[in-house]
């Protein structure tokens, strides 16, 4: 173990470390990458020109500087990103005191751990694929130090092939561990806060530009699989947060929720059953089809019928749900709710207020229709690039610019309704979805984000009105790409051009969906279900552990058995008979030493067992003749077998 590194060993180590570093580039600050590269180069030059290794007093200040750098960059040592950077840079610094193979092993083990760290950032198939190359390289590096034969050390192709073979051989064990290793409910360890940065999704407020920004993001919000009938596309309203309160340009959820009465829903018609797979977005919303009735565990229904989880959604959630498309919601409107849903600020948007007041005398339904007719008939344009609005934004939009996105239509409509005395609120969420025939499910992206209105009518309760549909029916019927002229603003995947790209993407997404469902989604519940199906019994943790250990033991036992058998098959008949004889001698405590020849061993054995001296020497002579002479007679082998049968060791001897 304490052999010194050869230049060959060092090259392997440096190359595989460089590849591991390469896979982590997006996760590291630039200075950490540069430092690691320079330590590696330094180590290479030390070896190349046979310079002396740096002394410990030279390395200590470097270590200190690195620690300070990490603290300054990450404001401390804790958290995923800081720890990774520290580990990477220390691992490469360790190279500068890597002299013996023991150090070499240490660095390789660290590097394996670094590969595992990739999965702290994401767990996609791509990451899995990315981890394969470094794993093969690291294993090849390990193989490289195990070779004593200099010729084999130099054979790169052979080493890589062997490494790949070794990893492939580990796959069955990996699968068994995957299926049977007991899953603990919830994540195994708490991911640090910064692990959840960079997630996108609906906010809890609505400002102009919120949703149109989200529309540029092609990230998947969730996937849906319907169990029976699929509703019409114009019914695919995925309900998110409901916004009551208007303040300047921003709409938020009601300022105080205390005392608000939960709304009561009456549903009719056929239930829509479906399974949602929600991507993590670090907020509470659990999106459901309008109007949800069955809600998942660990979630609750708010008074205005949106579903929120008990803690932010930081892992991919999969849940079954039931919704009804025909419903009556909140038939009776409490006094506080009425006030909240009519709230507009005095003195703002005078033109809009004036317009609404001009409709006095009309019924609520007529007011809605008049407003929608206005959107339909006046030259309103549905666009991702609306102009900036002045201090009275609703006025400016309704009477002047007339160019806007769903948030403009929803907010202006709700404002208009409130001014006209009709209780109204904004609902945000997603609308539509893209069907993937490969997996028979729908993909809903961030670009499908949408905002619409709900108005309260006596006897009918809260009714969904989507003013965007009045301006741009295509948005609701066909999706966003049909509704916009300037499709280049949209993410590639939401665009209508490149149908082959789209098709390839859908294929890829169905693979991804399977990965999410079966690999990442294989949690404690799924594991129990799966094992129950497999065994027909309810299994507990103990069963799983015992099963796992015993299956692996059986596999390893079988492998060993076949390997030993293979080894034995290589022995010739004389060697096999002689091996039996050696077993006999072993009972008398006699085993041949490593470099001891048959005759020398026989002489030693004969000394220890003087009664059998002749026999022992005879056996050795004959064995030598059979093994080494030009053409031994077949009879010799029989004679040897006979002699060995004669030979017995009494335990007393």
């Amino acid at each position, binding site marked *: 173990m304490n052999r010194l590194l050869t230049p060959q060993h060092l090259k392997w180590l440096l190359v595989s470390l460089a590849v591991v570093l390469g896979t982590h580039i997006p996760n590291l600050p630039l200075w950490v990458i540069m430092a690691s590269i320079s330590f590696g180069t330094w180590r290479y030059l030390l070896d190349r020109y046979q310079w002396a290794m740096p002394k410990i007093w030279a390395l200590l200040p470097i270590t200190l500087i690195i620690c300070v750098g990490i603290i300054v960059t990450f404001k401390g040592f804790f958290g995923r990103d800081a720890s990774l950077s520290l580990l990477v840079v220390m691992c490469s610094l360790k190279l500068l005191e890597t002299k013996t193979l023991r150090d070499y092993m240490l660095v390789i083990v660290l590097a394996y751990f670094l590969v595992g760290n990739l999965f702290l950032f994401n767990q996609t198939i791509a990451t899995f694929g990315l981890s394969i190359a470094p794993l093969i390289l690291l294993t090849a590096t390990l193989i490289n130090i195990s070779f*004593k*034969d*200099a010729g084999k050390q130099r054979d790169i192709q052979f080493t890589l092939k062997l490494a790949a073979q070794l990893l492939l051989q580990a796959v069955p064990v990996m699968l068994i561990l995957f299926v049977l290793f007991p899953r603990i409910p919830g994540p195994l360890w708490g991911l640090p806060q910064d692990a959840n940065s960079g997630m996108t999704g609906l906010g809890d407020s609505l400002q102009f530009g919120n949703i149109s920004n989200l529309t540029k993001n092609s990230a998947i919000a969730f996937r849906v699989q319907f169990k029976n009938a699929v509703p019409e596309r114009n019914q695919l309203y995925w309900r998110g947060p409901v916004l009551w309160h208007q303040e300047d340009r921003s709409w938020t959820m009601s300022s105080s929720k205390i005392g608000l009465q939960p709304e009561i829903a009456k549903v009719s018609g056929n239930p829509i059953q479906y399974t949602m797979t929600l991507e993590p977005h670090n907020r509470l919303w659990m999106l459901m089809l309008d109007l949800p009735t069955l809600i998942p565990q660990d979630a609750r229904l708010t008074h205005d019928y949106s579903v929120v989880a008990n803690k932010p959604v930081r892992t991919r959630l999969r849940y079954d749900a039931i919704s009804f498309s025909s419903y009556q919601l909140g038939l009776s409107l409490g006094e506080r709710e009425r006030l909240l849903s009519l709230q507009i600020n005095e003195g703002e948007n005078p033109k809009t207020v004036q317009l609404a007041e001009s409709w006095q005398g009309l019924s609520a339904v007529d007011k809605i229709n008049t407003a929608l007719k206005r959107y339909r008939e006046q030259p309103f344009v549905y666009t991702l690039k609306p102009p900036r609005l002045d201090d009275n934004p609703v006025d400016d939009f309704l009477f002047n610019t007339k160019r806007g996105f769903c948030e403009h239509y929803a907010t202006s409509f709700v404002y208009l309704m409130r001014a006209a005395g009709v209780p109204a609120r904004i609902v945000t969420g997603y609308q539509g979805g893209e069907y993937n025939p490969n997996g028979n499910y729908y993909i809903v992206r961030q670009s499908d984000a949408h905002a619409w209105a709900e108005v309260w009518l006596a006897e009918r309760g809260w009714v969904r009105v989507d003013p965007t549909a009045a301006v741009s029916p295509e948005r609701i019927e066909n999706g966003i790409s049909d509704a916009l002229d300037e499709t280049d603003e949209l993410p590639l995947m939401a665009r209508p051009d490149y149908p082959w790209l789209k098709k390839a993407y859908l294929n890829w997404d169905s693979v991804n969906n399977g990965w999410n469902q079966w690999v990442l989604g294989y949690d404690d519940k799924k594991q129990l279900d799966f094992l129950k199906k497999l065994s027909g019994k309810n299994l507990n943790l103990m069963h799983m552990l015992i099963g796992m250990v015993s299956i692996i033991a059986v596999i390893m036992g079988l492998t060993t058995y076949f390997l030993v058998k293979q080894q034995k098959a290589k022995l010739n008949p004389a060697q096999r008979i002689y091996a039996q004889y050696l077993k006999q001698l072993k009972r008398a405590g006699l085993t041949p*030493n*490593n*470099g*001891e*020849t*048959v*005759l*020398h061993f026989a002489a030693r054995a004969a000394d220890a067992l003087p009664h059998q001296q002749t026999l022992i020497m005879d056996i050795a002579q004959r064995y*030598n*003749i059979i*093994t*080494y*002479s*030009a053409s031994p007679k077949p009879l010799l082998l029989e004679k040897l077998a006979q002699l060995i049968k004669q030979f017995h060791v009494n335990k007393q001897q």
Partner: protein
Amino acid sequence: MQKTIQAIIHATSHIILGKEQQVKLSLTCLLAGGHLLIEDLPGMGKTTLAHTLAQVLGLGFRRTQFTSDLLPADIIGVSVFDRNTSSFQFHAGPIFTNVLLADEINRATPKTQSALLEAMEEHQVTVDGNTHLLPQPFFVIATQNPKHHIGTFALPESQLDRFLMRITLGYPDAQSERALLKNQGGRANASSIQAVCDADGLLKLQQQVHQVHVSDALLDYLQALIQYTRTQTNEGLSPRAGLGLRQCAQAWALIDGRDFVTPEDVQAVLPSVVAHRLAQDGNSNIAKQILDQVAIT
């Protein structure tokens, strides 16, 4: 054939008392067609052994005492101008014989040493552009004092490699010592000995060595040994050394009366074949280390 070999050993052992192993090894070396280096302190019977072997084998024998002022021409010979024929006449040196005893080879200067060693390798000498073949068989039996003795020039590694074997004699045991003191052996009796073989007989024996069977199993063992020296020690055995090891093992097997080589043969000759090639770093136990570490296949 076997009789001849036993007779050679028997006759030689009459003179070199109590050193049967060394006598066998020397004969092994000669049968394998290699040159022999005998290293020991003065007065241990080195010269006697060489002289006796030559006599028993019925070979021409010349002895040259190497000194620091010995010149290459003193061994190889010189061309002298003959006034009668008006041409140069080559006067052969002591090297033109079957067995050349190069006594205390490490007292000569490197220049003289290398002249001798060249002849050893080529079995011919070239003087003034004329090549003269040496008689067959041709052996050099060199003796040398241990290196730390004053006034010696150590043989360089490249020249050590030309000696197939190096043996040491060591002190005689008590019984042999007494016999020696009673004047029952030693150099005094060497001249009285009868030849039991001749040059042709020896060449035949050498042919016989090549016929000794080397099985694949044994080749595996040989290769493992050679490979071990190349990976686990500073300097590995050269291919020439590997070939030499095989030939010596074959010769040893022949002397033992077998027509196949066993690992025991290899182990018997290995210390004499490899020790002077590998012991440069002062590790005198190198042969034992190799034999203990390499498993027999």
